């Protein structure tokens, strides 16, 4: 088994176009059960800290879906997420704060403007492949982060600025949701539902793209873009579309992240952020929808878990030190890097495949004994 990150789900299928009948039957029920579970999470989880982790994961998963499309489906290496997320965040801040627009204006706008940004970069990107493309997108991150620091009117410079608030019925979700004097939802519960709603929309969009003509064109470009051109798929337009959609998702993720944190600084859109997003996609399972959330959850939960465990491990300190030493953040960074490598070496289809293994195993056993 070779480590082919770019062909995740097709490997499990008998042939393109054929789906196992059992999968088709189980699908809707599994999704419904999952939605119910997700809706119940705020009632089941009482810890504000873990709710916060969950909300961050939901928001990140939107951006990861974008990576799944451009990298997982269309096979284009993009390290540029950290360049497109802030486009969304600042679009939102400009509309939501400077011009007082509601979230249902700034949220779609953040997708559109970031999407346009992606489409503008596409003419450069479509001419390159593989490592060259990775390097080019990396350059974009450096240039973008410079722009944010210099464009102080928009971004507030290195000091940062207030982000667009999510206001529903005149209530800022960062204060929770109130009915009269009683709080119906805490800030964490309210944000969980809001972020989950946005993620659901993003997932449905991705799901539809995957099974549409466009999705098949993406995969054709990924598997053999020269051959794809021969069979009549417009390679340049397909790649441009992939970049545009992907950066639109990044824009939404960026504006949500800023809105949830309430504040946005140029320093947070660094190269590391881009790496984190690709890693989430691959750890979760490249090209898969469920993998986007799994990867994001893993990424956000692990530092918290390490931090929590570090209180029990003597040699791990909890704060950064000038003179070195093992700290919880550094330990989780190393574990994160190790997790990426382990996935690449041992389960290139990611957590998504790992989680499904027991189900898959049980099903094949059942099918075998039924025979």
């Amino acid at each position, binding site marked *: 088994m070779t480590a082919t990150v770019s062909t995740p789900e097709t490997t499990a299928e008998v042939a393109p176009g054929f789906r196992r009948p059992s999968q088709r039957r189980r699908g809707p029920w599994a999704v419904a059960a999952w939605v119910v579970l997700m809706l119940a999470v705020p009632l089941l989880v009482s810890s504000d800290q873990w709710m916060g982790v969950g909300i961050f994961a939901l928001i990140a998963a939107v951006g990861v879906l974008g990576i799944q499309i451009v990298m997982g489906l269309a096979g284009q290496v993009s390290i540029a997420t950290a360049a497109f997320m802030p486009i969304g965040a600042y679009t939102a801040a400009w509309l939501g704060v400077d011009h007082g627009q509601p979230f249902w204006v700034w949220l779609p706008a953040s997708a559109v403007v970031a999407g346009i940004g992606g489409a503008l970069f596409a003419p450069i990107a479509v001419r390159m492949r593989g*490592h060259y493309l990775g390097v080019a997108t*990396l350059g974009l991150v*450096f240039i973008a982060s410079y722009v944010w620091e210099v464009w102080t009117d928009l971004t507030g410079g290195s000091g940062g600025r207030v982000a667009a608030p999510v206001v529903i019925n005149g209530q800022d979700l960062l204060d929770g949701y109130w009915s009269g004097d009683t709080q119906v939802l805490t800030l964490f519960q309210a944000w969980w539902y809001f972020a989950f709603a946005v993620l659901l929309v993003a997932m449905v969009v991705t799901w539809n793209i995957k099974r549409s003509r466009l999705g098949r064109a993406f995969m054709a470009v990924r598997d053999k873009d020269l051959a794809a051109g021969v069979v009549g798929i417009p390679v340049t337009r397909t790649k441009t579309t992939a970049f545009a959609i992907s950066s639109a998702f990044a824009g939404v993720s960026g504006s949500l992240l800023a809105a949830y944190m309430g504040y946005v600084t140029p320093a947070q859109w660094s190269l590391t952020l881009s790496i984190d997003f690709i890693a989430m996609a691959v750890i979760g399972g490249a090209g898969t929808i469920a993998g986007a959330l799994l990867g994001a959850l893993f990424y956000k939960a692990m530092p918290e878990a390490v931090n929590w465990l570090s209180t029990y491990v003597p040699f791990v300190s909890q704060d950064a*030190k000038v003179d*070195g030493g*093992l700290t919880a953040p550094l*330990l989780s*960074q190393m574990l994160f*890097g190790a997790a990426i*490598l382990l996935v690449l070496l041992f389960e290139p289809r990611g957590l998504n495949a790992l989680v499904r293994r027991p189900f898959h195993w049980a099903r094949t056993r059942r099918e075998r004994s039924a025979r």
Partner: protein
Amino acid sequence: MTLFLQLGFQGVALGMVYALIALGFVIMTKGSNTFNFAHGEFVAVGAYVVVALMPHLPYWMAFIGSVVVTVTLALVAERLLLRRLVSASPTALILATLALAVIVHALVLVVWGVGTKGSAGPVGSGTVEIGDVVLTYSGIATIGTSILVLLALLVFFRWTSYGLALRATASHQEAAAAQGIDVGRMFALSWGIAAALAVVASIFLASFPRIVSPTIGLVALAAIPAVVIGGLDSFVGAVVGGLVVGLIQVLGAGYLTDYGGGRLHEVLPYVLMLVVLVLRPYGLFGSRGIERV
């Protein structure tokens, strides 16, 4: 004019440092088909090990020690990681080296902390004056040493059996294996050479401001535009690209302070890189096929 010559000298010196790092990128890309995003962290490791050994050893021994440590690190990474991902997609390889960068960066912080360390550099802080232009010892040493290293590389690749075998592997992997060239060993060799170059670059990078800080790995990434401008598979391109980036940065810092928040020189190499990519996706000296990697 004096200012221009002064800045030009510094730009060439910085450019030679970038050239050495860029050459490492090119050698690894050619020799093992992998663009190693962790190369900047190899530079960081090289710089820190020298600083750590300096109080205990003469400078040249600290340097040798750092080469040993950094090359070992590169060989271990190549063997345990890259060799096992030989048939993986470019995406997987890129991510693998990014993950390697994350891990090595964290390790550097664990061992040496987030603060800055003083660095002596291989030569004293004296200067020579030619006319009105002040040439620092460290600048002269940088340029001189880099030229020697470049000549040594030229001899190695042109006239030695291993250099030829490495180029043959880069040119056509399967054919090289068919001639009995141990391709795996060539992968390791390319990473080893790149790591050694990283250490040479690091001691000079650490003598520009005479400090070593955790961001040195990121500073070293400025060699990436140099690689792209020159062409991912061209040795000459790496050197020219390195000089271009070094000159842009120093001249930009000298002349463009009034524009773009005084930091324009930091992004100009990346802007130029994108311009080159639009006009010549394979770089100024690269071969046309390379963008199909």
